[in-house]
């Protein structure tokens, strides 16, 4: 890129080129050189802009920190001077010295207040450093950055070019409407004010909707064809025989447990007979005789019970009606004669029981 000539449309670049340093030429040539492709160049430009913003923010923070350190040193010096004046006043112990001490204390308080205020301003500057990085750059760069932001807010990225920006009455639009009364181009007449919109005529009443006809019955769905039977699954191939597991090695013999040491012999218990004899218990004192119980007083006689009144006579019970005579039982039919029982066979004679042996005498 050769150094650009003053543009035909405007002069910002011409002014910047006139004030530029000679070293900027090489940097401009690097900036104007193409990359491997357009996307790579666009990404490189975006990265350089972000790096520039970060560098400006870092510079602003460094300047703010330097100012904070300077303010802190001034506050410490003022406080030290105040303490020295106070010590000197105490040693002199005069009226003028006391006044000087009071003035020194006041100066120390003011110095501390100034230091605190400086710290607050530094913190505020650090917070605003990143946001104000654009403003810290050159005037032309800042104007270009602001104009780019304005372009994004004033022009839509979805509206095709050539469509006028009609003022919207929704009150939610953030885009300000173009005031036709202010001519944007000097020398051109302002647009006439738009006439007020006429009132909308009242809408006639809508006729009643006709009743909807009844829906016809749904035709019966045809029967679904039978699902073909699922073919039988082929038999799974036989699994190959698993190789024999290698024989486990013989377990090594367990090491012999060391012999447990012999338990020490328990001391012999003393024989029971060797226990000392218990002393004889003292005789219990004789219990005193119980006193005679006092005689119980005679119980008063019970009053005689009144005689019971005679029970009233019970009325005679009415006679029970006579029970009707039971009808005669019909004669039972004659029972058939029982067949004669067969004669019982004679019992065989029982064998003679052997004689019981004689029971020996006791």
């Amino acid at each position: 890129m050769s150094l650009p000539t003053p543009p035909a449309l405007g002069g910002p670049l011409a002014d910047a080129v006139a004030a530029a340093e000679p070293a900027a030429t090489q940097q401009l040539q690097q900036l104007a050189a193409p990359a491997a492709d357009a996307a790579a160049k666009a990404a490189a430009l975006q990265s350089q802009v972000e790096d520039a913003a970060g560098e400006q923010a870092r510079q602003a923070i460094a300047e703010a920190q330097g100012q904070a350190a300077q303010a802190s040193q001034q506050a410490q010096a003022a406080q030290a001077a105040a303490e020295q004046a106070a010590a000197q006043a105490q040693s002199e112990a005069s009226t003028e010295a006391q006044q000087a001490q009071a003035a020194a204390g006041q100066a120390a308080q003011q110095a501390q207040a100034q230091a605190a205020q400086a710290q607050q301003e530094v913190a505020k500057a650090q917070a605003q450093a990143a946001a104000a990085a654009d403003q810290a750059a050159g005037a032309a760069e800042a104007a270009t950055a602001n104009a780019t932001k304005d372009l994004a807010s004033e022009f839509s990225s979805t509206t095709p070019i050539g469509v006028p920006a009609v003022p919207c009455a929704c009150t939610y639009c953030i885009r300000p409407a173009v005031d036709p009364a202010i001519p944007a181009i000097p020398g051109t007449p302002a647009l006439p004010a738009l006439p007020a919109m006429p009132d909308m005529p009242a809408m006639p009443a809508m006729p009643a909707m006709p009743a909807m006809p009844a829906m016809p019955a749904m035709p019966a769905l045809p029967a679904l064809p039978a699902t073909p039977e699922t073919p039988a699954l082929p038999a799974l191939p036989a699994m190959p025989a698993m190789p024999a597991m290698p024989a486990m090695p013989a377990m090594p013999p367990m090491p012999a447990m060391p012999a447990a040491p012999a338990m020490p012999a328990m001391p012999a218990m003393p024989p029971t007979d060797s226990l000392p004899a218990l002393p004889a218990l003292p005789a219990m004192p004789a219990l005193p005789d119980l006193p005679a119980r006092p005689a119980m007083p005679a119980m008063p006689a019970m009053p005689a019970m009144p005689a019971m009144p005679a029970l009233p006579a019970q009325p005679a019970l009415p006679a029970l009606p006579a029970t009707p005579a039971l009808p005669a039982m019909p004669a039972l039919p004659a029972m058939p004669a029982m067949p004669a029982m067969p004669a019982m066979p004679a019992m065989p004679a029982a064998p003679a029981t052997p004689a019981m042996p004689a029971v020996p005498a006791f």
Partner: protein
Amino acid sequence: MNQISSEQWKQLGRDSFDARLIAIIRRNHPDQAAKMDFASVVGGFHRQAAKAQRYGLTDEHSAATYVYTAWLMGDEFDTRIPAIAQILNDRRMRAVDKAKALGNFSRLVFRTLSAPASRGAA
């Protein structure tokens, strides 16, 4: 009832586009704007807007960014600067990405020109 013809509608669109772009230039570049006759610049705006559409910048934001970059850099900036020509002639890149690249390039150019020697462009 009054009707707006197609040509009147297009004229309204061009006027709206020019008015918004000129307002932005006046607001951000007051010194340069004070020295310019915008009545004669409007014709250049329309020519640059037509070139922007040939590069695929058909929405009004991308076209306005192109016209603004042309106002900053010069009429033939699209062919004179190789990096810009590469970006504008890429048919796969979206219009919004081309507009973003134009804005970044303008900013870096003025940063380089206004920076002290100790600070590089990149």
